[in-house]
């Protein structure tokens, strides 16, 4: 019911907003204001192609709508998404198609800013862990694929409270905490089904360098339907200039007794040939003790952005597990 109401709200406001398009001089990737209301609407989509083991897969992956705004010390964000909306895959028996028309709540939260230093959030949000998970959508990331560490180590989404303290001086220091002690707002839209998540993060930024540490614990359902507490640690760094960006995240995850993922990490370099073209090299490695899979990979990528909110990407992945070698191509747009 909540999702239906949100869809009606988003569609109505989008139509309302279109009447004001000319006045607001809409530009792709910036969203549009609904009249003079504290409401901006936008969205994004992504289509992709994969060739793995000589088999092709075509997908309309993401189709999402955003609505956000602020009023005095409050701000809000709503994001609804069709995930893997349409998939056409080649199999041994011929082509198969799948459609998932369920609409997921990706983010839905309200922020309250006490002052320049303190902020409190209530709702479902991207877990504020590492750097990749803060901007996880295809059009904003550098490659079509996500590093393994970004979906093996920690829950990508948290439903509950988020609080942060930030100090803005020569360097910027941020300390934040996440608390979930309830069900996920949309448990089908998360990499782990969780009902508890407690985490702490510290970020320090100065000029081109950002450093971040995260630790946390979450309670999740295992394949045998039992629940288990899992503990994780992630260290991240990002160095970014006008021409290039170097980013790395490495983490580990364990239960009370054993490592579930001994390590998972990546080191990625992005070199911008110019405003429109970038080449990417990513080295990745992980050791998943739970599923007993260990893999190393090298990923070569190329991204062309005719304008920034439109990304056309190609990448090739070379794995130590050779059957995982694959080619990916995608088109994604933020509007």
């Amino acid at each position, binding site marked *: 019911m909540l999702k239906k109401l949100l869809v009606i709200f988003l569609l109505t406001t989008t139509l309302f907003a279109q009447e004001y398009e000319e006045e607001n001089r809409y530009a792709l990737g910036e969203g549009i204001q609904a009249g003079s209301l504290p409401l*901006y609407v936008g969205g994004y989509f992504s289509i992709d192609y994969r060739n793995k083991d000589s088999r092709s897969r075509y997908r309309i992956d993401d189709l999402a709508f955003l609505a956000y705004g602020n009023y005095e*010390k409050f701000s809000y964000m709503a994001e609804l998404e069709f995930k893997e909306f349409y998939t056409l895959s080649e199999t041994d028996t011929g082509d198969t198609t799948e459609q998932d028309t369920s609409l997921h709540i990706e983010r839905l939260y309200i922020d309250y800013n006490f002052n320049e230093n303190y902020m409190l959030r209530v709702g479902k949000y991207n877990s504020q862990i590492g750097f990749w998970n803060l*901007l996880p959508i295809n059009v*904003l990331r550098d490659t079509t694929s996500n590093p393994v560490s970004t979906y093996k180590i920690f829950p990508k989404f948290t439903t509950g409270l988020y609080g942060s303290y930030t100090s*803005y001086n020569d360097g910027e220091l941020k300390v934040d905490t996440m608390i979930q002690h309830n069900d996920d707002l949309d448990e089908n839209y998360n990499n782990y089904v969780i009902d508890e998540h407690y985490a702490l993060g510290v970020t320090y930024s100065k000029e081109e360098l950002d450093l971040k540490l995260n630790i946390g614990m979450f309670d999740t359902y295992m394949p045998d339907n039992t629940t288990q507490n899992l503990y994780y640690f992630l260290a991240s760094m990002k160095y970014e200039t*006008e021409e290039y960006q170097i980013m790395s995240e490495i983490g580990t995850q364990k239960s009370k007794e054993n490592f579930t993922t001994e390590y998972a990490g990546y080191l990625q370099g992005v070199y911008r040939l110019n405003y429109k073209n970038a080449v990417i090299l990513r080295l990745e490695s992980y050791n998943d003790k739970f599923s007993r899979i260990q893999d190393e990979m090298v990923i070569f990528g190329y991204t062309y952005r005719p304008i*920034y*909110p439109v990304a056309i990407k190609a990448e090739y992945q070379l794995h130590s597990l050779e059957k995982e070698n694959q080619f990916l191509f995608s088109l994604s747009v933020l509007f």
Partner: protein
Amino acid sequence: MKLLILLCMSTLVILQLQAKDYAVVTNKNFNTLSVGQIKALFLKKTSFLGNKSIVPLNLSSRNAVRLSFEKKVLHMSFSRLKSYWTKQHYLGHRPPISMKSQESIGVFIKKVDGAIGYMELKKVDSSLKIVYKWSD
């Protein structure tokens, strides 16, 4: 040799005369700000100073004063800022509003408590407070 020294000194004087000075300005109720705070306000990492709501003001996107502000204070190019604000759209943040001229920034600041903008130093009048200065 004397001629060479004289030539060098003249060049330095000419360059100095050509250098432009700029200021980040507010009304008289503000304290001096650090570069970190100015960056945080203009990049919309925060919209508050203490409990006060802040309204950062930009000049139009290709204005020379704005380009100098972005290069010397924010340390970001036009294209990098474009990608920054695209990412901020996904995060639910909007760029500062743009004003047509330095004069309109001055008028806005006088009328709206919490407004902050930038302009050439020579255009700052006595009703505005300079919270930060930079040169080309």
